[in-house]
């Protein structure tokens, strides 16, 4: 999952970045509106956290630009303005939720997770597809209620696939969601992760949870159980 943070205060920016990275997200940051808009429009973002009071370009203008380009990933507003006028303007511009400053890291994280579930139309923090159950807040995966031990990268892959269960996810998209901008990228690694996941999720080769579509990518095939 790739998250963009546009926040001019370096302390808050770094704190949020660290918190999200610890949870396993890939994080891009921008310190002003201009750079933020560039990331927001040109990077494959899953969720954007945007401060409203930004230098160069205002947060609301960034949101309007993103929506005008047809990008529909969830946007969370960070605002110090507690008046409803600001919140409503932000939500009307295209944001999906807001968090008022000062905030607790857990609260922000919970909102981000809720927004991510919303994109994949998952209403709860637990996603269940067939016998596979994934808890996003605890980052744990169960098969027939028995926990499967996954590495951080394996978890990222299965989470993204289950979040978009039924949809085709390209190899490059998975790579971008998993790695930081400056990380070395090796698309063959994705194939390794997929193979390992298939073994862990389907040891008897009876479920076939991950389908490969040649030249297009992968699809999580198990039916959603608790879709919103």
């Amino acid at each position: 999952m790739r998250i963009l943070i546009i926040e001019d205060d370096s302390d808050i920016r770094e704190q949020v970045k660290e918190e999200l990275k610890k949870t396993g997200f890939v994080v891009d940051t921008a310190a002003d509106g201009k750079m933020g808009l560039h990331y927001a429009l040109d990077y494959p973002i899953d969720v954007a956290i945007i401060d409203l009071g930004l230098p160069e370009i205002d947060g609301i203008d960034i949101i309007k630009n993103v929506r005008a380009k047809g990008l529909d990933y969830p946007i969370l507003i960070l605002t110090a303005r507690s008046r409803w006028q600001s919140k409503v303007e932000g939500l009307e511009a295209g944001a999906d939720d807001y968090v008022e400053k000062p905030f607790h890291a857990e609260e922000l994280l919970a909102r981000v997770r809720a927004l991510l579930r919303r994109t994949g139309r998952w209403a709860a923090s637990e996603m269940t597809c067939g016998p596979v159950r994934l808890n996003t807040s605890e980052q744990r995966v169960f098969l027939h209620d028995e926990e499967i031990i996954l590495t951080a990268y394996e978890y990222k892959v299965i989470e993204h696939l289950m979040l978009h269960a039924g949809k085709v996810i390209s190899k490059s998209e998975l790579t971008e969601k998993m790695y930081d901008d400056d990380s070395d990228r090796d698309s063959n690694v994705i194939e390794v992760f997929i193979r390992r996941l298939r073994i862990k999720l389907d040891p008897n080769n009876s479920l076939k949870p991950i389908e490969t579509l040649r030249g297009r990518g992968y699809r999580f095939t198990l039916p959603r159980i608790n879709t919103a």
Partner: protein
Amino acid sequence: MNSLRARQLVSSFAIIMGSIFILGLILSMFISNRELENEHTKLKDIGFDLLGYFSFEKGNFTIDTELEEQLNKLFTDAGFSDSVENTAAYIQDTNTKIIHWHSLDPFVNLKNISYTKKDMERTLYTYPISAEPGEDIIKRLKPVNLDPDLENDRNIQHIVYSYGFQHSPYGRYQLVIAKSANTLFSGERDMVTHLILLFSASALLVLLAQLATSYWVIAPIKDFEEEIKRLESGDQESIVNPYPDELNPIKGTINALVQYEVGQKRRYRDALDDLAHSLKTPLSAIQGYIDQEGNNPDRSPSIEGVSSQLERMNDIISYQLRRAVVTNHHAMITPHPLRPVLIRLRDSLLKVYHTKNFTLDIKVESDVKVRMDNDDILELFGNLLNNACRFCEKLVEVNVQPDGNFLIVNIDDDGMGFPDNNPSKLLKRGIRADSQTEGQGIGLAVCTEIVEAAGGTIELLVSPQVGARVRVRLPV
């Protein structure tokens, strides 16, 4: 008299009627004098004709009886026998006041006859007039020896002509000819009647013309008034239509005032937003550091204290900044429609509470307005609806009912409701309904500030769904 048109009509009517009265008076005096002058000429001619009949010998005036026929003709021509004109003449010694001759007994020398006072009153009127020799006078007079019962009768007034002459050494005399002023009065009355008719018709025409022109003159003022009403009702933001030169300065002043008010409010709110950003961003960073430290097993116990103080600071800043932007009721506030604000908030809140399966029902017609600043309406109902959405199970409903010059707005939910023990405490600053939910206490306290500044009231009740009902009573 508050209508300009009524003022114009009344003042025009007063001016026209005053002018007509003065003009009528002047005309009446002029015509009356002219009539009197005509009578003067007539009576002077009669006087000279009459004096030609007299012989004067040793202090006695006599007329030869042979001249009776000519004299009677003269009397007839001059109206001496006419019952309306009632003309009479006499010769009087101006010193002794003795009457020497009178037209009632033209061939009798009256000098030596003694009349009774009753005779004098009934027949022989004399007048308070005295002409010097060679002088002639014309006046309107009442007889001196008038019957007291007739004193106030206007018709008793006579036109009296007197010509003075002298017969030395016998004395000075005057020939007095008097006739009834009735004909003069009836002429004046006719003239006054005609004048009244003429002037009334003119006045009516002028007033009708005034009424017609007043619509044309007052029309821009009426339009101006309509625009002011629309401005006041919030349907438009400034006066835009073109107006006559006399109204343009007022238009400019009102527009400038409105713009100033709006601009001032916007600058003030922008400044407070900047201040909020400047204060809360460092608080947020501190909160982040506390959160990081909170995960450390060897953290200092004082971290909890710092966190609690930080929360307190945030509450104070939030509360003070939010109440600072509340518009007080002395400001120029126009009524604003409630429904568009509620719809905006509903759409925003349904986004925020996307995962919660509930209905937010706005039962407010589009013509319902409240006399509050638009930002304050948004802030008030933003807080109240947010609380309702947060605590409801399946339903939030907003309904209204008129209450005289106020509007009652109920925000109902089917949640757990307010605590039984003194819920009004929640409306005061710093008391929270749910200590685990940030900001509610501040929100309700700010709502109280907004409602009270607008001149309304706020109550916490129980909804028909046995949840919370916040009832606000707002001016319209």
